[in-house]
């Protein structure tokens, strides 16, 4: 063999050795590349507090503002940066727990789309210029449009409105419990009674998503944990489209949209006829309605059969005390309260709430009635200057309210916002708002007030955008400018708040103030309310008939996560799979498989959903947890101007709703009749859990519900 000749054997030797050598040598090299010298900077502290140690977090108490529940939080701060939020264990509301929306408050705070500077039109200006512009332009009485607001921010807002000629406050929340509150006020004379899920042994919900979005979901979830502990409470949920609560229920019943009240009265009828429960605690008008609601009539209105009604009645009877809640419409809530009255839950699992002293610290609830009133008053020219903060009326207003036209009628529109959104596009002045982690405040949580608890919000870190101002500071400045009495001494909102809280706790000492900050709450005096019966109450069960041929009833559903759309710009919540469909970063329409088969639709088909007020195109998701007469589209998506993460993702079902309002509560209806038409497109909906079958692999062992019931009755029989 010639030495110059490369044969196969030598070639492979060279290749093998060379390759191995290069690989080994190569492995060692990048380790130095990653060890940078002089590439990154490190800043030392100037004069830190003694307890500040780099690398070790310090926890501060504050309050979560991601939804109106106002949970107390502990925030971990390290090297001057807020890094993590958890629930504050000292509060009666959330007791150390925090939901995903609260956890994602960090992304609200660090969001790259935060507004950093004031602007007039498209032009960035200084604060002085913006305030001068507002002063020159605001002629008439101002109006405030906000979300639910409470505590001293509410007090200062009143001061501003009163000092500038008695304008109005419109508190707007699309996801609210107004129907429940009106019903409670009408039946027991207390709009916000305290609920004790933990003390109940059975709970029935008629259209209230108690574990997802209703009033104070984290509190309810904690209570629900105790409810489920031995002896295990039984949860029954009756609703048109499955919610997080429905998914947790032992017994889930699909009712035609708007017919939950009929089912509730049907259950009351079963209690009265089968179990001889007295209706003497009920107002005559309601008792009469129960006896007209025969099982046949219930089936006609809701599609729910007699056996189901008896089963719910039986569950309530054998698991006492019980708790019945209802929302979605005034009738649902009144019918639920009727059941509570019959079952003797008033005073047991429903106890009176309390009024804070002073009363103006209490939460000013948000409603859609206020949204409709705002649109109406703006249209008629009654509002000359509007201050908008914590609400996005252009996005959340049903199309029927013509919010854009209404805003155009207002001479001066000032948005105080963290983010550019659909509403700031229509505002003359936009002022940068500090994030909840940078701001001071007090908040009266809707269910903490029963114990006189006011949660204190304190900044966890320096402002990321130095020009942003807290809501309290802006309110104080505006109130001072308007000449409100007694506010001249305060340089900033911190000073105001400290004085106010010192007055509340009766001492101005530093140590007492530090105690308040450390606890994250202050105990305010509160007077217990008492229940009063209302004998003249009546209930009109709506005629919920099956929709006409080719029609479906659209339900706009709320989810813990994107909520009413305010959290659509938080990637964590977009990425967190939807609780029902497990879909991410998208919109869809839930539709029952039999309905889909009737309409000739497959999973993933794109459909155009048309109502009298608008149309949208999205794909369908076949799901048995929705009533066959309904089509459910979750709200939250479909933003057009809400930063890089939310814009152009999904569709906004609120665009399809009309301006129909409830006669008793004034709330705007969240359902409407729609036509569904396939577009011919079909695409895969990205979901975390793609299939609901195991194909015989027994990944999770299951038995049928019937089998489980038989096992249980055998056990009870044997014992």
């Amino acid at each position, binding site marked *: 063999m010639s030495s110059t000749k490369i044969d196969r054997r030598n070639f492979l030797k060279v290749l093998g050795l060379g390759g191995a050598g290069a690989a080994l040598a190569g492995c060692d090299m990048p380790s130095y590349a*990653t*060890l940078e010298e002089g590439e990154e900077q490190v800043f030392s502290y100037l004069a*830190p507090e003694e307890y500040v140690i780099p690398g070790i977090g310090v926890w501060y108490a504050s309050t979560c503002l991601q939804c109106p529940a106002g949970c107390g939080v502990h925030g971990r701060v390290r090297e001057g940066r807020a890094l993590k939020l958890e629930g504050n264990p000292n509060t009666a509301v959330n007791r150390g727990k925090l939901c995903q929306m609260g956890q994602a408050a960090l992304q609200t705070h660090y969001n790259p789309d935060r507004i950093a500077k004031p602007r007039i039109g498209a032009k960035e200006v200084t604060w002085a210029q913006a305030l001068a512009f507002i002063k020159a332009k605001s002629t008439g009485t101002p109006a405030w449009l906000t979300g639910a607001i409470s505590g001293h921010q509410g007090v200062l807002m009143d001061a501003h409105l009163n000092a500038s000629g008695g304008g109005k406050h419109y508190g707007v929340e699309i996801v609210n419990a107004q129907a429940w509150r009106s019903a409670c006020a009408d039946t027991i004379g207390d709009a916000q009674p305290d609920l004790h899920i933990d003390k109940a042994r059975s709970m029935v919900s008629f259209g209230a998503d108690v574990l997802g979005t209703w009033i104070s979901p984290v509190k309810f979830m904690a209570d629900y944990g105790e409810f489920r502990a031995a002896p295990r409470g039984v949860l029954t949920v009756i609703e048109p489209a499955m919610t997080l609560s429905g998914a947790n229920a032992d017994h889930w019943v699909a009712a035609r949209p708007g017919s939950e009240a009929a089912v509730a009265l049907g259950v009351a009828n079963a209690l009265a006829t089968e179990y001889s429960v007295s209706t003497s605690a009920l107002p005559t008008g309601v008792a009469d309605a129960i006896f007209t609601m025969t099982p046949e009539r219930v089936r006609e209105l809701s599609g729910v059969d007699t056996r189901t009604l008896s089963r719910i009645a039986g569950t309530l009877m054998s698991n006492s005390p019980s708790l019945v809640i209802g929302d979605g419409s005034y009738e649902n809530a009144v019918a639920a309260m009727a059941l509570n009255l019959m079952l003797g839950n008033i005073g047991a699992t429903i106890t009176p709430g309390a009024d804070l002293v002073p009363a103006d610290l209490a939460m000013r609830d948000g409603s859609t009635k206020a949204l409709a009133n705002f649109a109406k008053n703006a249209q008629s020219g009654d509002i000359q200057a509007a201050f908008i903060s914590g609400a996005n009326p252009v996005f959340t207003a049903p199309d029927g309210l013509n919010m854009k036209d209404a805003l155009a009628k207002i001479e001066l529109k000032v948005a105080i916002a963290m983010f550019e959104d659909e509403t700031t596009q229509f505002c003359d002045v936009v002022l940068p708002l500090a994030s909840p982690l940078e701001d001071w405040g007090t908040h009266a949580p809707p269910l903490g007030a029963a114990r006189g608890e006011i949660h204190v919000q304190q900044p966890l870190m320096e402002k990321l955008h130095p020009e942003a101002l807290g809501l309290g500071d802006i309110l104080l400045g505006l109130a001072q400018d308007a000449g409100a009495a007694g506010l001249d001494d305060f340089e900033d909102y911190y000073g105001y708040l400290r004085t106010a809280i010192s007055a509340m706790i009766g001492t101005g000492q530093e140590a007492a103030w530090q105690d308040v900050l450390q606890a994250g709450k202050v105990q305010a005096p509160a007077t217990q309310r008492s229940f009063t019966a209302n004998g003249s109450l009546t209930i009109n069960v709506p005629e919920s008939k099956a929709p006409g041929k080719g029609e479906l009833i659209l339900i706009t559903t709320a989810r813990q996560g994107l909520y009413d759309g305010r959290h659509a710009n938080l990637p964590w919540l977009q990425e967190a799979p939807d609780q029902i469909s497990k879909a991410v970063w998208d919109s869809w329409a839930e539709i029952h498989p039999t309905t889909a088969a009737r309409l000739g639709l497959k999973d993933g088909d794109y459909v155009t959903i048309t109502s009298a007020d608008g149309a949208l195109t999205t794909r369908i998701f076949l799901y048995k947890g929705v009533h066959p007469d309904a089509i459910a589209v979750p709200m939250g998506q479909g933003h057009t101007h809400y930063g890089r993460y939310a814009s152009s993702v999904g569709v906004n079902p609120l665009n399809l709703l009309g301006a129909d309002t409830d006669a008793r509560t004034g709330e705007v209806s969240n359902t409407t009749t729609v036509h569904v038409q396939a577009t011919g497109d079909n695409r895969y909906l990205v979901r975390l859990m793609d299939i609901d079958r195991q194909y015989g692999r027994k990944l999770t062992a299951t038995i049928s519900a019937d089998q489980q019931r038989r096992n249980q009755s055998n056990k009870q029989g044997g014992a």
Partner: protein
Amino acid sequence: MSPDRPKRRPFPWIRTVMAVGVVGASIVLGGQLLEQERRGGESPVTEAGPRVPNAQFPTDTFNGKDVPQPINYSHKLHAGDLGINCLYCHTYARRSKVAGIPPTSKCMGCHTVVATADEKPEIEKLAAMWESGQSPAWNKVNDVPDFVHFSHERHLQKFLFDNPDMNVKDSREVCAMCHGDMVEVTVAKKMRPLTMGFCNTCHENNNGPADCTRCHK
């Protein structure tokens, strides 16, 4: 087999492969030589520096870059000539995962009295920053990647506080295990490679934990 058929070369692409191989090998070897030099070819670090008497630790050295700093602070002067204990300034090292750079208030604690701004131009820079409420932007010299969880606190506990057998006299001996003898440099210079092999050698010699997740969290 036809005799007319032209004879094929057995591996027509062998020249290309060899050329690529030669270039690749020279890059790899050149890189290695370069790193070898940085590792300690002409290292200023001597083996005679302070060391924990009975500990076995890797003797690898590294000739780091001269990293410019906003203030020309001298470890040689403070820790060497004046004999200030490392932990007097890097007080966080025994309480936290990071040793931390001392706060300006600590510097000014001495420098309002000794070697004041009037006397020294570098102190003048420091005093000006202190007055204007600015922190100096130091450039990191010793740094491990983000996927490595290193705790100063744990290592000081092991070698300095919880360690009667090794007869440690000065915290400098412990610090020098990973940082070299800092009294030989002015501001700071990387004098140990701080690679995984470097860490592992010491962990093996001194019964440190060997599970991956202890450092890679």
